[in-house]
């Protein structure tokens, strides 16, 4: 069972130094993201009103977030009225405890899982294992990750870093440890691999009595939960067991049933690049004779209210986890998802993780810098999260500190360690740039000594010259050329 966690992982620059040299990973990711990018562009281009849908998708989420307390109370009331039970989890530990206790109360020792970012985030599988409960991932990619004792590296396709040959190897060597082994002579054709997964999981689905899921949306006015999927493993988990436990972030609520008409168009086209995903399930509480007899909804905070408190960072809570931003990100494509050290990789992870977890570790403090600010993520985001804006905002929190909400308490955080020299250099640069005369002197000094400049720099400059030549300093700055040619003009102020 997968015991790996993201704890104690290196900073993004350190992790990506290794991952960018992994040619198999680079090839797998390059192939996969190029494929999905093209498909997504075509799926989006089909809808003439995409920009209006996108704006509405953002606006509905903003309305929800600005009145989140109202919608959460409404949701709770409707879910309860429909026969569900609502639990509130301020943090990951509380959520783990609630779920573990609920499973224990059923007397079962195993649970099936639908792919869920929230349960990844809280480390549920490890907690269940420690309680003697086996948790089986049923999404194909999550199964690959779990069997391979690996970590997910993509929101939609957690095993995107694996190619078919690697997956065949994992199935052949590991499936038997978990249940039905892979068939003899398993090939690496995706259809054959999917068939092996079907056979491996079938028995588990048919005997399952407890399942754990997340949800893509929760409708406040009706108490309805929505799960969007492709394989049917979600339907299996949502309908066959007697007990269903859904762990859902509080930001997943939308006000009305009608609002789904926006998101059920935005999400499939942005994520799998389909007009509609094969299966969408919606349920409201429990239904006699159809589906689970017990339904528990665990509402998860775990840093979301801290994010909500930041008026710039709040927009990140609009995210519908489509992963379009990962698929277009040149940094993600080269560094790979593991370098982000969290279940949320890529651009969205770089703005979500440091808000959910804070910027206290070297890894979390490095995430806002894991971007060239190229803006491709903002362009494709179906709910118009200005990811570059939030990245820069969080960089400020890292280098300068300032007001932030941590675990519900308003506080002033100190700058992250390791930025003192940079801060001093920035202040010096600002002073120089605010004194054109001094700038001119500096330029002249650089020009006079230009033949002495080394080709490779020591210290921090080596980060540049290890792979790139330095530009030659010209004999004369533009400023001096202008003055020489226009002596009558231009005084430094």
């Amino acid at each position: 069972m997968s015991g790996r966690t993201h704890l104690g992982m290196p900073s993004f620059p350190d992790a990506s130094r290794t991952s960018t040299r992994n040619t198999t990973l680079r090839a797998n990711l390059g192939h996969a993201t190029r494929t999905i990018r093209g498909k997504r562009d075509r799926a989006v281009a089909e809808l003439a009103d995409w920009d209006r849908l996108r704006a509405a998708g953002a606006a509905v989420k903003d309305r929800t977030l600005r009145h989140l307390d109202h919608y959460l109370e409404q949701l709770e009331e409707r879910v309860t009225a429909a026969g569900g039970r609502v639990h509130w989890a301020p943090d990951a530990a509380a959520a783990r405890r609630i779920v573990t206790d609920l499973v224990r109360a059923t007397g079962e020792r195993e649970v099936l899982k639908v792919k869920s970012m929230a349960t990844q985030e809280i480390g549920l599988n490890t907690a269940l294992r420690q309680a003697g409960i086996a948790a089986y991932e049923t999404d194909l990619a999550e199964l690959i990750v779990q069997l391979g004792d690996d970590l997910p590296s993509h929101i939609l396709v957690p095993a995107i870093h694996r190619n078919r040959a690697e997956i065949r190897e994992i199935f052949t060597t590991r499936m038997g440890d978990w249940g039905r082994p892979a068939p003899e002579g398993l090939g690496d054709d995706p259809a054959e691999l999917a068939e092996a997964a079907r056979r491996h999981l079938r028995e588990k689905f048919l005997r399952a009595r407890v399942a754990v899921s997340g949800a893509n949306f929760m409708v406040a006015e009706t108490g309805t939960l929505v799960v969007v999927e492709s394989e049917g493993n979600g339907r299996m988990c949502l309908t066959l067991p007697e007990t269903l436990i859904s762990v859902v972030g509080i930001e997943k609520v939308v006000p009305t049933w009608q609002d789904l008409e926006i998101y059920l168009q935005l999400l499939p086209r942005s994520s799998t690049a389909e007009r509609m995903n094969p299966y969408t399930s919606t349920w409201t509480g429990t239904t006699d004779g159809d589906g689970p007899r017990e339904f528990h909804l665990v509402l998860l905070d775990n840093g979301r209210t801290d994010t909500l408190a930041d008026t710039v960072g709040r927009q990140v809570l609009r995210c519908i986890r489509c992963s379009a931003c990962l698929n277009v990100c040149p940094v993600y494509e080269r560094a790979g998802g593991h370098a982000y050290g969290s279940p949320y990789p890529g651009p969205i992870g770089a703005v979500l993780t440091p808000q959910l977890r804070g910027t206290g570790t070297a890894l979390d403090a490095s995430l806002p810098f894991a971007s060239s600010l190229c803006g491709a993520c903002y362009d494709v985001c179906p709910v118009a999260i200005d990811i570059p804006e939030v990245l820069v905002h969080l960089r400020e929190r890292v280098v300068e500190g300032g007001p932030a909400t941590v675990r519900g308490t308003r506080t002033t955080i100190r700058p992250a360690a390791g930025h003192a020299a940079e801060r001093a250099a920035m202040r010096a640069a600002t002073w120089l740039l605010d004194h054109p005369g001094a700038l001119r002197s500096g330029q002249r000094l650089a020009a006079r000594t230009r033949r002495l400049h080394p080709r490779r720099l020591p210290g921090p400059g080596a980060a540049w010259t290890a792979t790139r030549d330095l530009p030659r300093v010209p004999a004369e700055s533009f400023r001096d050329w202008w003055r020489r040619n226009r002596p009558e003009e231009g005084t430094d102020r």
Partner: protein
Amino acid sequence: MRVALFVTCVNDTLYPDTGRAVVTLLRRLGVEVDFPAAQTCCGQPQFNTGYRRQAEPLMRRYARAFAGYDHIVTPSGSCAAMVRDNYPRMGRRARAEGRGGHLAELAEEVVPRTWELTEFLVDVLGVTDVGAYFPYPVTYHPTCHGLRLLRLGDRPQRLLSQVRGLELVPLTGAEECCGFGGTFAVKNPAVSSAMGDDKAGHIRRTGAPVVCAVDNSCLMHIGGILGRQGAGTRPVHLAEILAATEEQPYGGPR
């Protein structure tokens, strides 16, 4: 019409030819351009690295240096985007922090007057044929800030397509970032270089001897990688191509 050149700190210090090219080009089009010497830097490196408050004196300097001009023209997509997108943002933040509306007013005042060079040529002057001559194959790298923040669209290509002798060679993966990203290039050198290697590879495979862009900082990164690879491809700012004529052909870096 009073037009000021905002040359930018990078061009001023490292690429004065680009500034000279803008002067030559605009003068040829009948636009007399000034260089207010109080200008320095838009504050983009500070802002994008998280030192927003350090960018504020530079924003004030920008507004002061360019007061009284009808148009401020800059041969840098990212510096134009800094002014247009981030100055208003800095103003809003200062106001939200209870520091008054002064910065917000400055932003409102400079944003509508600030133009990236190709915008100024196409939108303000209304020209796409600037009478240039550049008899080489050229590939064009649309920089991220030009593409996605300024939405320059095909303005640069329209200008290039009118240059006599120039053959525009399409670039694979053109819209993908080159990996420069300001301080990103030194904070995440492995990923930055990996992105730059891919970009340089695409550029080399065009076979064009020249790659051009609207931003010298991206070209510095791309050129640095091409140079280290020993490639003969030369990075040239778009302004220098547009400034070249039969009478005064492109002379290369001096």
